[in-house]
C-alpha cells in the first residue's frame, strides 16, 4: 500500500507551506503524488525520485571530464582546499537546513574563511536597513488573522511565492478577518503590471528605480505635508487616496521584495519603507515583512547571528573573531576584487545567479559545489559533492520568512550512500582538524594573527 505522509514542509520558497500531503510508493522509494503544493513545490518532490540523481562525488579531470570518487576522497580534497587557501569563501545555504548551516560555520571558522549566504545578493539590503532602522514586523499568522490592508511593493508573489496570497493575505479567512477577500484591500506597487497586480484592488505603476521618492511622498502626506502633482510616475490624487487607506486600516502589512533591494538605493529603499511603517503606527497598527526567497534563507541569518552576532557576509579569517562589512566582505564584491582564493558553493547556484563577471573571477581558484542536483555551479566545479535534499530526504529545522522555525521532515531516504550537508561538513571539519594537527606536529601551525585575541581570564 502506498503511504500518505501529512503535514510535509515544502523546501522551495520562503512561504514554507507545511500542509503538503505526499504519497510514497510501497517500497518507500518513489514519490507518487503531492497534494496542496504549488507548481514549483510539486516539481521539487517529483524531481527527487523522477530523474537521474548524482550518487557519488565527482572530481574534474585534466581533460575537463568528471570522474566519480568516494566521499572520503571528496572530504579530503575539500579539507585540503580549505586548509591551503588563504581566504576561502563559503557561500550559499538557500536550500539546506539549520543543522547544515551550523556545521558549515564550524568549518568556516576552522578554515579562517568568509562565510556568506544568498541574502548577500537578495535581502542583504534588508539587513542593513533593519540594523539602521529597526523592524516593526509580525508573523504571517498575525497578517492572516488581523490584516485588512496589505501592500505588496516590488514583490511578485504570484510568481515567486505562489501560495503566499492564498495562505496569508488575500484569500484566507482569518480570526478577525472572517470574510477573506471581501474584507481586505490589496495594494500592489510595482513598475511591472504583474500577475500579482492583476488581483490587486489598487495598482500603482511606480517608475523603476524611483520607489524611494514614492515612499517619501507617502510619508509627507501621512504627516500632513503637500506633495507635487506627480511623484515617481504616480498622480498626486492616487497617492492621497492610498495614503488615506493606509491610515484608516485596522491592521496592515507591507510585504516588499527584490524591487526594492535590487534597484538603485538598495538598503535606503528598505530603510524608508520601515520609516513609513513607523509613521503609520502613529495612526493604527502597521507591520512590514521582507519576502524572503528560499525556504530556509532566513535560517543562516538566525543561526549565524546566534553563533557570531552577524547574519551574513561574515569574515572569519581571524577565526573566532567575526567581522561583517558588506561591500567589503560580501561575496560578489570579494569576487570582483579577487580577494578570495577558493570557493564553496553550497545549496545554491552561483554559476547561474551571480553576474557572469563574478563567476569568471571566482573560477580562477578551486571551486567546490555541494548540491543534490546538477546545476551551473556543479558543471564548472573542480569537485561536485552530492547531498540529500532537505525536506524530502533529510529532516531539519528551517526558518520561515517571518522568522518562525519549523521542523521539516523527510518523506523518503536519500539515494543509497548519499549523505546530508550536516554530515558532510562535520566530516570536512574533522579532516581539517587532522590536517592542522599534522602540521602542528611538524611545527608549522597555521596560527591566528598575533595581537587580535582578547586575553583569556585566568
Amino acid at each position, binding site marked *: 500500500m502506498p503511504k500518505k505522509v501529512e503535514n510535509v514542509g515544502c523546501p*522551495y*520558497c520562503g512561504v514554507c507551506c507545511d500542509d503538503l500531503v505526499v504519497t510514497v510508493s510501497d517500497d518507500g522509494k518513489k514519490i507518487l503524488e503531492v497534494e496542496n503544493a504549488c*507548481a*514549483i513545490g510539486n*516539481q*521539487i518532490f517529483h*524531481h527527487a525520485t523522477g*530523474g537521474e540523481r548524482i550518487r557519488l562525488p565527482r572530481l574534474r579531470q585534466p581533460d*575537463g571530464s568528471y570522474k566519480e570518487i568516494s566521499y572520503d576522497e571528496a572530504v579530503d580534497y575539500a579539507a585540503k582546499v580549505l586548509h591551503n587557501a588563504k581566504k576561502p569563501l563559503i557561500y550559499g545555504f538557500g536550500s539546506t537546513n539549520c543543522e547544515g548551516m551550523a556545521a558549515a560555520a564550524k568549518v568556516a571558522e576552522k578554515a579562517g574563511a568568509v562565510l*556568506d549566504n544568498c541574502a*548577500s*545578493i537578495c535581502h*542583504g539590503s534588508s539587513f*542593513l536597513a533593519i540594523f539602521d532602522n529597526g523592524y516593526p514586523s509580525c508573523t504571517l499568522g498575525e497578517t492572516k488573522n488581523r490584516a485588512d490592508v496589505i501592500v505588496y511593493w516590488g514583490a*511578485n508573489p*504570484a*510568481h*515567486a511565492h*505562489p501560495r503566499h496570497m492564498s495562505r496569508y493575505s488575500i484569500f484566507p479567512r482569518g480570526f478577525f478577518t472572517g470574510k477573506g477577500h471581501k474584507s481586505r484591500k490589496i495594494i500592489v506597487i510595482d*513598475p*511591472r*503590471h504583474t500577475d500579482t*497586480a492583476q488581483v490587486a484592488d489598487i495598482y500603482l*505603476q511606480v517608475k*523603476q*528605480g524611483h520607489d524611494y521618492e514614492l515612499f517619501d511622498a507617502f510619508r509627507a502626506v501621512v504627516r500632513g505635508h503637500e506633495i507635487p502633482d506627480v511623484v515617481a*510616475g504616480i498622480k498626486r490624487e492616487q497617492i492621497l487616496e492610498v495614503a488615506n487607506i493606509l491610515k484608516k486600516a485596522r491592521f496592515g502589512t507591507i510585504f516588499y521584495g*527584490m524591487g526594492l533591494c*535590487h*534597484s*538603485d*538605493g*538598495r538598503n535606503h529603499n528598505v530603510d524608508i519603507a520601515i520609516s513609513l511603517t513607523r509613521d503609520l503606527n502613529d495612526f493604527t497598527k502597521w507591520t512590514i515583512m521582507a519576502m524572503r*526567497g528560499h525556504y530556509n534563507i532566513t535560517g543562516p541569518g538566525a543561526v549565524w547571528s546566534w553563533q557570531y552576532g552577524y547574519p551574513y*557576509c561574515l569574515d572569519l579569517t581571524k577565526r573566532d573573531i567575526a567581522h561583517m562589512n*558588506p*561591500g567589503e566582505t*560580501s*561575496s*560578489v*564584491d570579494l*569576487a*570582483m576584487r579577487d580577494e578570495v582564493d577558493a570557493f564553496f558553493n553550497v545549496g545554491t*547556484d552561483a*554559476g*547561474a*545567479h*551571480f*553576474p*557572469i*563577471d*563574478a*563567476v*569568471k573571477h571566482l573560477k580562477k581558484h578551486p571551486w567546490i559545489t555541494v548540491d543534490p*542536483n*546538477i*546545476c*551551473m555551479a556543479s*558543471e*564548472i566545479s573542480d569537485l561536485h559533492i552530492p547531498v540529500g535534499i532537505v525536506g524530502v530526504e533529510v529532516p531539519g529545522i528551517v526558518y520561515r520568512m517571518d522568522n518562525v522555525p519549523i521542523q521539516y521532515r523527510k518523506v523518503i531516504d536519500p539515494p543509497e550512500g548519499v549523505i546530508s550537508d550536516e554530515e558532510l561538513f562535520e566530516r570536512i571539519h574533522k579532516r581539517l582538524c587532522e590536517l592542522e594537527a599534522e602540521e602542528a606536529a611538524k611545527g608549522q601551525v597555521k596560527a591566528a594573527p598575533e595581537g587580535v585575541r582578547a586575553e583569556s581570564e585566568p
Partner: protein
Amino acid sequence: MANRITLNMITQRSIEEGVAMEKGKTTPEYFEACSIIEMHDDDVKALGLVPNQLVRVTSECGSVVVKAVRGRQSLYSGLAFIPQGVWANQVVPPRTQATGEPQYSGFPVTVEPANGEKRKSALELVQGAVGLWRGDQ
C-alpha cells in the same frame, strides 16, 4: 542600418523559471523560460520585430541573444525584463553600491535584432565563460 534602442532592464523571478529550475537548468524548459525578453509593444514596434524574433541585448558588461516574447505581465515603454537566470546574468552589472547586491534591476541595455544569430544554451554560456565548454556533447 539595423534598429537599436536603449531600454532600462530589470531581471527578476518568474514562476516558469522557478518550475524549470527545479526540473534542471540543462532542460529545454529552463531554456525556454529564461532565454527571453519582454518589452512594451511600442518598443517592439520601434525595433521592427516580428513575434518571437531573436534580439541581442548588450549592457556595460556583456551581451546575450534572447527571444522577444509577449509575456503575461505588462511593462511601460522604456522598460525591459529578462527572467532571472543564466541569460540575464550575462548582462547584469556586478556593481553593488557597496551592499553586496549586484545591479539586477535598473541598468541600461541596448536591444537590436539579432539577425542570423542563435541563442546559446545555459551550459554553453556558463562553461564557455570559464573555458570549459567542449561543444555539444
